[in-house]
């Protein structure tokens, strides 16, 4: 009750645009993929609900690393020229710790918080305070060609050695030299890190232990890395995956030139477009496991919406965030864009499921997914570890040496952060 009262008061005495003084909110977000971009429509609806308020949306660059650099440079400088921003989930603890985003605890009632996936909310809550609201959700999953697997009588593989066997069998049977086996993202960037993490988790290894120390299960981590390198050496995955990101792998699979693809849910919408060569032939499954791990250790991801700490229109900006993450807005996003909502209830919504029958299956995958380490220093860790992992994938370092060197680098980093 007090929270509700607080919200009403906060919403009430916040900035109502005084007539003659139009307020412009600047909303920075990345390009939304999919058949139709629902964001402009949503922003117009918000403007209609709040007369005198205009929302200007500005696009970020495509690359996640560049987006982060843009934010870091502008937020660190003092007065960033935007009010509401779309953040990759992994940045939220960092931005909160750096004091760049607004504490939303007082503005958002508990019921509204609980409507989102717990694993999406976890990174947004630091030191008991809420710093951002989830906007859409992602999880790493396995795409497979239903027609090819059915032709050889295979079910989606639950273990990676099964996947390798299936690839070999199918390729031998098809006799098509241009048919690739298993595509994944091995380029040296955050996406590559995600792939490596999923391989670690698939083998029951963690990146950090509870005390924040790196590689608590080094032998299993070594196995995971050796497995990834082995995929390339044995030809199950083509050599160019070590320089490939999401789009570079989605296209060949979407053109029908690969059997398996590790990807995010957005790709499914693109595979099901009318002109797609693989329309109706793509299935979705949890990521396989390695000997010591479990099935379905996909990495969760997605974007959150946060308010700049230096905004001059606090209440309005928070209103925009709450509006865009509301049930109605996320419904529109799911219908229009290749995005999946952060509200579990929408995955069982009859109307949405009728349009997209894969939603219930995705719900299960999302609930089994694991977040990347939730720490303000995640990005520092990732950029420190990426070169080491990349060296293993291209065959320049052995997994043992890479883990040893990576541990030394992380230890050095931690000495600066946590004395």
């Amino acid at each position, binding site marked *: 009750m007090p929270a509700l009262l607080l919200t009403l008061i906060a919403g009430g005495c916040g900035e109502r645009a005084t007539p003659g003084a139009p307020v412009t909110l600047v909303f920075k977000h990345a390009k939304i993929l999919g058949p139709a971009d629902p964001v402009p429509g949503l922003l117009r609806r918000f403007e209609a609900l709040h007369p005198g308020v205009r929302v200007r949306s500005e696009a970020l660059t495509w690359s996640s690393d560049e987006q982060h650099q843009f934010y870091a440079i502008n937020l660190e400088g003092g007065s960033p020229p935007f009010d509401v921003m779309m953040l990759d989930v992994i940045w939220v603890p960092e931005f909160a710790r*750096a004091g760049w985003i607004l504490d939303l605890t007082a503005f958002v009632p508990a019921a509204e918080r609980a409507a989102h996936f717990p694993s999406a909310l976890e990174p947004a809550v630091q030191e008991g305070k809420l710093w951002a609201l989830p906007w859409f959700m992602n999880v790493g999953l396995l795409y497979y060609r239903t027609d090819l697997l059915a032709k050889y009588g295979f079910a989606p593989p639950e273990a990676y050695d099964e996947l390798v066997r299936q690839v070999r069998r199918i390729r031998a049977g098809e006799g098509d030299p241009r048919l690739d086996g298993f595509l994944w993202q091995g380029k040296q960037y955050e996406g590559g890190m995600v792939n490596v993490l999923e391989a670690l988790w698939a083998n029951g290894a963690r990146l950090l232990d509870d005390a924040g120390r790196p590689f608590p299960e080094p032998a299993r981590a070594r196995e995971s890395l050796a497995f990834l390198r082995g995929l390339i050496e044995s030809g199950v995955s083509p050599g160019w995956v070590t320089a490939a990101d999401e789009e570079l792998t989605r296209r060949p699979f979407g053109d029908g030139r690969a059997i398996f693809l590790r990807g995010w849910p957005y790709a499914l919408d693109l595979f099901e477009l009318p002109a797609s060569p693989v329309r109706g032939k793509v299935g979705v499954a949890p990521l396989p496991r390695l000997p010591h791990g479990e099935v379905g250790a996909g990495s969760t991801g997605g974007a959150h919406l946060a308010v700049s700490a230096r905004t001059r229109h606090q209440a309005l900006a928070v209103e925009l965030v709450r509006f865009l993450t509301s049930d109605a807005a996320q419904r529109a996003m799911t219908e229009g864009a290749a995005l999946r909502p952060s509200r579990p209830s929408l995955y069982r919504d009859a109307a949405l499921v009728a349009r997209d029958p894969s939603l219930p299956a995705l719900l299960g995958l999302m609930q089994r997914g694991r977040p990347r380490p939730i720490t303000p220093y995640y990005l520092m860790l990732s*950029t420190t570890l990426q070169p080491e992992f*990349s060296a293993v994938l291209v065959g320049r370092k052995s997994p043992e040496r890479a883990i040893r*060197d990576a541990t030394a680098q992380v230890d050095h980093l931690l000495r600066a952060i946590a004395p």
Partner: protein
Amino acid sequence: MTDRHLSWLFLAPALLVLGGLTVYPALWVLWLSLQYRIPVFSIARWAGLEHYAFLAVDTRFWNAAGVTAVFTVVSVALECGLGLGVALALRGQRHWRRVALALLLLAWALPSVVTAKMFEWLYHPSGGLVNFLLGGRAINWLGDPALALPALIVADVWRTTPFVALLCYARLLTIPPELYEAGQVDGAAGWQAFARITWPLVRPILLVVLLFRTLDALRAFDLMFVLTGGGPAGSTETLTVYAYRALFQTLQVGFGAAIGVVVFALVMLVAVGYLRLINRESRTA
């Protein structure tokens, strides 16, 4: 106003700018390298020689040092050899000299980012001219750890040879033709003329050029950063790229400063060594 006053008046502005923007930062970076400094998280603590101790055993640092060394030595050797050759070819040029120099200096004058993007496109596996001329083989020049560094060196040599060529060419022009005529009388021609007349006169300028080019190669950043980003897997990551990543990617200002100081010390060491060598040369000449 006496001359002495005037001299200070004239010198002061330049010294102020240099002092504030070159000397002071040079000292400050030393100070930064002795700290744990991560401005984003307001971390600022004394570290002493921790960063240097870590660098001594850091494999990534030694890899970068190796890449820097190979890049410097090979690049400078190639551009000096090639530059001298171009200068010798240009020496007898009588017609269209300005056009010739313009074509030559173009490579040197272009922004390094332009050169990087240019070669990135030339090296493209399917759209690049290099693979096209090689008969359509899809060699991944910038994606193969074994090929990336040579590819980078070729781009750098292309960019810097004109500078060497120009300087050697200017020196060659000052050699009076009578020397060669006299040499011909003695029966020295072709290779011997080069070895006995040209080389001793060109050597001093070549040593100076060697110094400049070595210092530039040690400090090189733009080309490798834009062309390969230090990849793949660190095969083209020089000390400068490593320092940049530490500073602006992992935001470890103290650690990045330490790597910068190492580059600084290396450059100064090489400069002093070279200057001693040049001094000795000019004394014995």
